[in-house]
C-alpha cells in the first residue's frame, strides 16, 4: 500500500505552532513580496479569500478581519524537515514530493495494521511538530491522493482514509468525482475528455487505456491504470522534479577575495539552473552558503547560509543569479579565508503544475517564450561546446533587489535571537 501524507494548511499550521493566538483566526500567508495569498486557514477560506488572490484585491472590510503574514521560508523549511523525520520513523520508504507532501510505501506491512499505524504516525507528527496531517492510503499514488483528499474533507475518517481499489465505496466516490479533481488532469485535457463523454473519475477508469493513449499520451493511459489501483507511475518519475538541487564546490585554494566568491556562486547557480530546466522545474527560493575550512583551527572559522525567496517561481538563470548574489552580499564577511561555497535551489515546482495565479507579476506569454528560448540556447551551447562556453555576465547592481516581507513572523527554529518567547 501507498500512503500520501499531506500537511493541513501547512504554512498557516507552522505559524500557529509558535503563536497559538492564531488558532481559530482567519490567517493567510502571502507569497514572496507580499503579493498574493498562497496559504489559507479554514477560517479565511470561509471569508471567501481565494487561493492566489492578490492581497490588495481583498475587500477592505474582509481584510480587516484577516491576519495576513509574509512567508517565513526558514520556518517552513525546518518544520517540513521535522515532519519528514517523524514519517521516516514509521517506514523506511519516504519520498518527499513537496514541502508539505510525502509518499510513503508500506510494502510488506500487514494490510490490517495499516490504519492503526497511520493513525499513530499522524498523532506523532502532531505531537512532535504541532503540524496536523492527513493520510490517504491505497494501492496506487493517484488513488492515495484522492483518499487523502477525503481524509481531509470527510470528518468520519479522523484524518486517515483508506480506499480499496475495488470496493463499492470507492466506486461510489469515483462516480461523483469530476475528472478535474484527479491529480495530473489539467483543465485542457479535462475539456477534451468531456468531448469524449468522460466527465467523472469512474468513467475515466472504465475507459480503454489504449484508446486514451491515442487521444492523449502515455500519461493519461497511466492515470487510467492508477485509477484501477495499479501503481504504474514510478516513484522516480513522481519525485521529479526533485525538491532541491544543490551545486557546490571547494576552492582550489582558500580565498578571501569577494570577486572569487561572486564568480563561483555565479557558476554554481548557472549550473543549478541548467539542472532545473532539464527536469522542467521552477524554483521558488535559493539558498546560498559559504564556509571556511573547518580543519584549519589556526584560522577564524565561519559558516553561513541564507535562503533568498524569489519574486516568482522561475527557471531563468539570470534571476537565480541575481537572487544568489543578493544572498552572498548579505553573508559575505571580509577578512575570512573561504574554502567552499554553493547554492541550493529550493521549493521546486512543476512547470505543468505552475499556478499562474500565484505569480506576483505574470509574465506575458511572449516574454516567457523568449526567455525560454534564450535559456534553451544557453543550455545547448554549454552542452555541445563544453561547460561555461556561454556565461552570464556581471549582474546589475543588486541593492534594489530587496523583497518585501513586512509581516514575516520570527524565524523561531533557525535563529537564536528570534526564538519564541514564553512567559515565565
Amino acid at each position: 500500500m501507498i500512503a500520501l501524507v499531506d500537511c493541513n494548511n501547512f504554512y498557516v499550521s507552522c505559524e500557529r505552532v509558535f503563536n497559538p493566538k492564531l488558532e481559530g483566526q482567519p490567517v493567510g500567508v502571502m507569497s514572496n513580496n507580499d503579493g498574493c495569498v498562497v496559504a489559507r486557514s479554514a477560517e479565511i477560506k470561509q471569508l471567501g479569500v481565494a487561493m492566489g488572490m492578490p492581497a490588495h484585491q481583498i475587500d477592505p472590510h474582509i481584510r480587516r478581519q484577516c491576519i495576513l503574514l509574509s512567508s517565513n521560508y526558514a520556518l517552513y523549511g525546518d518544520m517540513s524537515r521535522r515532519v519528514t523525520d517523524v514519517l521516516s520513523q514509521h517506514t523506511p520508504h519516504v519520498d518527499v514530493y513537496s514541502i508539505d507532501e510525502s509518499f510513503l510505501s508500506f510494502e510488506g506491512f500487514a494490510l490490517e495494521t495499516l490504519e492503526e499505524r497511520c493513525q499513530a504516525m499522524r498523532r506523532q507528527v502532531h505531537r512532535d511538530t504541532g503540524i496536523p496531517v492527513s493520510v490517504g492510503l491505497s494501492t496506487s499514488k493517484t488513488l492515495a491522493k484522492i483518499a487523502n483528499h477525503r481524509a481531509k474533507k470527510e470528518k468520519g475518517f479522523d484524518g486517515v482514509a483508506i480506499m480499496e481499489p475495488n470496493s463499492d465505496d470507492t466506486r461510489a466516490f469515483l462516480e461523483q468525482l469530476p475528472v478535474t479533481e484527479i491529480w495530473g488532469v489539467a483543465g485542457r485535457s479535462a475539456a477534451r475528455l468531456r468531448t469524449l463523454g468522460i466527465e467523472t473519475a469512474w468513467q475515466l477508469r472504465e475507459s480503454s487505456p489504449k484508446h486514451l493513449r491515442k487521444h492523449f499520451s502515455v500519461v493519461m493511459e497511466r492515470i487510467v491504470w492508477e485509477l484501477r489501483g495499479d501503481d504504474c507511475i514510478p516513484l522516480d518519475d513522481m519525485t521529479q522534479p526533485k525538491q532541491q538541487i544543490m551545486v557546490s564546490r571547494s576552492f582550489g585554494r582558500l580565498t578571501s577575495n569577494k570577486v572569487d566568491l561572486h564568480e563561483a556562486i555565479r557558476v554554481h547557480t548557472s549550473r543549478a539552473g541548467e539542472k532545473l530546466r532539464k527536469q522542467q522545474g521552477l524554483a521558488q527560493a535559493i539558498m546560498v552558503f559559504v564556509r571556511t575550512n573547518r580543519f584549519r583551527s589556526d584560522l577564524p572559522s565561519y559558516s553561513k547560509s541564507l535562503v533568498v525567496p524569489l519574486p516568482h517561481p522561475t527557471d531563468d538563470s539570470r534571476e537565480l543569479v541575481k537572487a544568489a548574489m543578493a544572498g552572498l552580499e548579505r553573508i559575505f564577511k571580509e577578512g575570512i579565508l573561504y574554502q567552499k561555497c554553493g547554492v541550493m535551489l529550493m521549493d521546486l515546482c512543476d512547470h505543468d503544475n505552475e499556478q499562474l495565479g500565484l505569480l506576483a507579476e505574470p509574465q506575458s506569454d511572449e516574454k516567457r517564450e523568449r526567455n525560454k528560448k534564450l535559456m534553451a540556447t544557453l543550455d545547448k551551447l554549454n552542452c555541445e561546446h563544453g561547460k561555461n562556453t556561454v556565461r552570464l555576465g556581471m549582474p546589475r547592481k543588486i541593492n534594489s533587489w530587496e523583497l518585501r516581507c513586512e509581516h514575516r513572523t520570527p524565524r523561531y527554529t533557525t535563529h537564536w535571537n528570534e526564538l519564541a518567547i514564553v512567559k515565565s
Partner: protein
Amino acid sequence: MSLHLSVLGRVDTTSPPLKLPLAAGEVRTGFPSPADDYLEAELDLVDHLVQHPSATYYLRAKGTSMTGVGIYDGDLLIVDRSLEPKLGHIVIMSVDGELTCKKLGKIGNRPYLIASNPEFRPIPLDGKECQVWGVVTHNIHSLAPGFSV
C-alpha cells in the same frame, strides 16, 4: 561544603552542523598514528541535551515566575514535545493563546499551573482554553555577562 567536579571529556568546538559517522581509521596512507587506538568521538553537548531531535525546540524564557527552579529572565529553554507531560514536570503550556512556562501540578483534586516564585499565584486550569505544548528538559542559563546563548 565543597563542590566536586569530574572531567568528562573534550568539547568539540569545531563540530560541523552535519553529523557524520566516524570512520575509525579505515582509510590509511603512510605510517599509522600510534594515538589512533586511543581516539574517541568528541563530546557533543547536543547529544547530551537532546533525545528527540525532530521534537526538540528552543524557546526563550521571559519573566521571573520560575526563579525558584532556576529559570531566569532571558534563559534558553530546551523543550521536548514528544515527552508525556506528568505532574511535577516543568511544561510549556498554551493558555488562552499564550505560551507560558510553569510547573504542572494539582491542588486538591484540580489541575493547576504552579509558579516557583511565591509572588505568583497558581493558575487554575479549569475552564481555560489550554494545551500542553511540550516538556522543558533543560534550562541554559548564562553566567558570563555578555555571553549570550
